[in-house]
């Protein structure tokens, strides 16, 4: 059953498992991918993830796991984790300046109920600067509808409230939505953002 849930979780939430064998696209393909991401993202930032993320825990599942007289299987403990919350420090806002400023924190939800801590395509690595292509997360998203925050290294399973306002997720959770912040990639993304803003008439 747990295995089934893990597979189902993968199908629903995208590539959650790792290590994984991936492809490394060429410049043109990368530009094509970025072009789509730039267009679809409401926020594009260069940011540094924190040393450890918080876990987002489904309250109902946790309650079931902690039911009196019941000792949960360790595999079940993973099932209650619906994702992770990275409070990433913004270094450079490339698109969506109204949402966040340099030096502020952007709250990033990374889906993942599996035991694995990262997505095979979008590995958010602690302390590693990267370009994030983000979109606002709907407050009605079922994954966070009844969820709480479990800080790193918890002593108890006491959940903190999850502030769903200004919460972001990857623009495409099932595909690449992170890029290296190398000068070359950064230059390309900035150009694509300029092109995209020129092509799209301002609504203001």
């Amino acid at each position, binding site marked *: 059953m747990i295995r089934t849930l893990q597979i189902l979780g993968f199908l629903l939430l995208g590539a959650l498992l790792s290590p994984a*064998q*991936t492809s490394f*696209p060429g410049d043109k393909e990368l530009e094509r991918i970025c072009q789509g991401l730039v267009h679809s993202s409401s926020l594009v930032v260069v940011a540094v993830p924190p040393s450890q993320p918080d876990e987002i825990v489904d309250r109902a599942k946790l309650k079931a796991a*902690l039911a009196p007289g019941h000792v*949960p299987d360790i595999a079940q403990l993973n099932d209650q984790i619906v994702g992770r919350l990275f409070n990433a420090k913004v270094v450079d806002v490339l698109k969506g300046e109204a949402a966040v400023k340099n030096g502020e924190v952007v709250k990033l939800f990374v889906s993942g109920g599996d035991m694995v801590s990262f997505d095979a395509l979008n590995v958010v690595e602690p302390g590693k600067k990267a370009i994030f292509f983000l979109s606002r997360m709907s407050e009605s998203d079922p994954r966070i509808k009844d969820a709480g925050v479990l800080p790193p290294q918890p002593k108890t399973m006491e959940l903190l409230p999850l502030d769903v306002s200004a919460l972001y997720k990857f623009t495409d959770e099932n595909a690449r939505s992170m890029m290296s912040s190398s000068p070359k990639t950064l230059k390309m993304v900035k150009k694509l953002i300029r092109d995209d803003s020129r092509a799209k008439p301002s609504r203001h």
Partner: protein
Amino acid sequence: MSSSGQILGRYALPLARQRLGSYFSDNDGDALLGAQHLFVTDERDSAVGFNLSTSTIDLNWQAPSCGGFPCPLISLAGVAAGDQLILEQTGNGDGSSTLLALTPGTSGCPTPFCATAASVPNATLSGFDFSGTVFSPTFETFLFTDDFFCMCVIPPSASGGGATIGGAVSAPDANVTPAPDLLPPWPEQAMDGKRESSVKITISPVQTIQDGDTASFSVSVTGTDPNDPPTYQWSFSAPKSAGNNPNVNFTDPTSASTKTDGHWFAYPNETCPSAPASSAYDIRVSVMIPNSAPKNKKSKLTINLPMVGGSTSNALLSGIPDFSFDSTRMVYFVSGPGTLARATPPVTIFLAPASQFYNKSAQHENVHVQQYLTGMLSDLYTVSGLMAVLSPLTDPTSDGLTSKYVAAATAYLTSQKALLVARHDAAEIEAYNVSDLIAPQYFYQRCGVTHFPLPQ
């Protein structure tokens, strides 16, 4: 009939034999479309014109009665300016043929024929039929020497079995065979293109599949003779400079429907950095309709590769530790590993089993499995490691110990994740060192990358 296919009216055509030799637009001379008229003949006795503007029959020609055998055969030869119907009557009793020009609006033609005596501008055969016995090779060459159209049939012995049609557009010299003129300046409305437009050929839309999957293509042809169906030939093409041996195998290359395999090719032919995940073949079908030039239709077959070929889970641990009560200390404690166990890590391959990359991906993931079992990740997610954090736990109540167990186990899993992230690059390089040697050496190659999986 309206553009949407609604039938707006039905009109009986006064054909003496109440039948058509075959159906419209099969180009054998029993029906023709003019600028304003649909002309139809029953091949023996009648030819009628249905005025498409007024929905009336304004041409009704009846052949002279035939007393002998065989009777002449009638076919529609073409439509001249002013919607004059050129009608061809072959197999007369003396072996001659007659060409008639019938003018709509004249209704019943005067006796003997309403035939133009001299010439018919731009009137050339557009339909004819050699299949009738009337026009058998026994007639051999014959020239009609009146001021009418001239038709020549060359004996098989002289032409290698072929036959030639001559088209006269002005009063012919009775002693000269007109030069063949197979591509005359037709009246626009009677050109082949107009007639053939009633043949509809539709091919399947663009198909997109993953490498190793199959696709289905079909072609639908309407408006052809059901007794003489078309034949088909499927083919493909890919960019000339593409790599990884572009190929499409058709299961039924000469049928109206066929399946294909899905073989991704590299275009541009680049290994590092990788060629795009999508490659597209042009899929063509050539439709051979009897007595007509082959017609080609084109579609596309796009083959995709998933960005992630496979992955290995670290969902290794399962089970429940043993809890006991220490009556000396009056506390519950974790007394042993119970059913805790570490399993072989599950592998998921995101490629179709028939994919050319399946083995490459499976071998890559197998390296990760071995890393967990005996290699660089074998110290992660272990029962002993978990027990090291669970063993010190105590609580006066069973539920209290359970709560501490859940918190400690969750923290342990989190710590293992952090270690896994730290070793991720080294683990991947080791796996790529194995899989990069396996063909096809495209797309899932490491390409010198040392930090995974972000593109540089």
